[in-house]
């Protein structure tokens, strides 16, 4: 990254005072007064100089809060007569209606819902509705959504999902290119991998864990790429890499 960015770690209680020339963004800020903000979670604070001065505060930790339209990976934790409850790593379990999953009306008197999904099954779904007063509802009526039948699941901190994807998907496309794995990233901090072999899968998991650990350090994509190449050489998958 070449843009002049000053990065520090901000902690709860840190005050940020801005003036007219500086814009500020971040979801974890509390406005104390007209030009004073409080950082509320452990975050990285980027200060970008240049024509437009701006401060960006990105949380390093925190629970996933559902948002309409998010693609999440859930695990079924409960089955009722006409809907499933899925754990989506948020404070609230999500509802997936049987009629939505099947795409037609569902009569619990005629069919057993467990035939389709049972406790422990993994689903890729989209948050259809959430307003904090009721449980979030999921839908699988879109391309690429539905029950997962293969692959492996990695869990990371939800606030670091953005880093795994990277700016303009740079990180995820680099990972795909280097490991030949197929990634499905759930915004709630679950990543599904489908890999050609176990060596590459292992390297991909190591790389994701490394991204999670070092999410706050500048120059991440390059470092991870180097890391993957080194791991591949170590495992004898390639002899060397020419750039």
């Amino acid at each position, binding site marked *: 990254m070449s843009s002049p960015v000053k990065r520090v*770690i901000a*902690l*709860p*209680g*840190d*005050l940020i005072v801005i003036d007219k020339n500086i814009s500020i963004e971040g979801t*974890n800020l*509390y406005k104390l007064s007209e030009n004073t903000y*409080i950082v*509320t*979670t*452990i975050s990285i604070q980027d200060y970008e100089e240049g024509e437009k001065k701006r401060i960006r505060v990105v*949380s*390093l*930790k*925190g*629970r996933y*809060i559902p948002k309409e339209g998010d693609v999440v990976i859930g695990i079924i934790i409960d089955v009722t007569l006409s809907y499933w409850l899925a754990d989506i790593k948020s*404070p*609230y*379990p999500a509802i997936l209606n049987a009629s939505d999953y099947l795409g037609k009306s569902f009569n619990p008197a005629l069919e057993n819902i467990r035939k389709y999904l049972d406790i422990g099954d993994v689903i890729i779904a989209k948050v259809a509705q959430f307003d*904090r*007063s009721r449980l979030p509802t999921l839908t699988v009526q879109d391309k690429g959504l539905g029950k997962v039948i293969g692959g492996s699941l990695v869990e990371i901190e939800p*606030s670091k999902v953005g880093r795994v994807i990277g700016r303009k998907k740079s990180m995820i496309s680099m990972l795909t290119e280097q490991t030949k794995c197929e990634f499905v990233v759930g915004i709630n901090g679950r990543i599904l991998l489908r890999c050609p072999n176990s060596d590459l899968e292992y390297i991909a998991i190591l790389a994701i864990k490394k991204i999670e*650990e*070092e999410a*706050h*350090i500048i120059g991440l994509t390059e470092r991870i790429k180097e890391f993957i190449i080194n791991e591949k050489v170590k495992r004898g998958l390639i002899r060397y890499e020419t750039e």
Partner: protein
Amino acid sequence: MRQSKPQLIINGKRIDGREPQDLRQIKMEVGILKNADGSALVEIGGTKVLAAVYGPREVVPRHQEQVDRAIIRCRYRMLSFSTLGERKSPAPTRREIELSKVIREALEPAILSTQFPRAAIDVFVEVINAEGGTRTAGITAASLALADAGIPMLDLVAAVAVGKIDGVIVLDLNEVEDMYGEADMPVAAMPSLKRVTMLQLNGVLTPDEFKKAFALALEGINKIYQFQKEVLRKKYVEVEE
């Protein structure tokens, strides 16, 4: 069973060699428990407190949930081996139940609980070794653990006790000073907002003494607060190296 009161101030120094305005030695660590969302271990002198935070998560039992905010539950406990002499019964005592409430109320103003309606945040404070000032160490540790769990907070809460022993206002009482002193006043505050979240007073202080003690407490709180921030920051810098 009170033994005769020892002399607490000798030649201007306290029983453990500190000056009246000195804190005991502090050691803090965060993120030490893998299963908890956030955790912290705080040692202040001989007092050693472990705090763990879980949540925000679903409320069980359901009837406790609040529609407009997350409920905060706190449990303060002293482990059976934490005290001197006879083993402490593991059943929660009156004192532990009260301190659970006191710690919860000291943390509540800092936590932005309205961001998680119908959820629960659980705080567990376990005293591993008790040597005076367990409630203040508990608050300090719990607020570190909350920050480590990524729960949005207005500020970190730091706490310390002040008291009067042999007529002298002192900071951060240890067990002996607490037992034989004339007054004991634990204070918790959010330093960057300049707000006090807890203040208790046991014993008698004149208005002047109170002002002096309160100022001394805030000074101590500031030192602990800086220490808290340093520890949290260090956790992320360490990875960098």
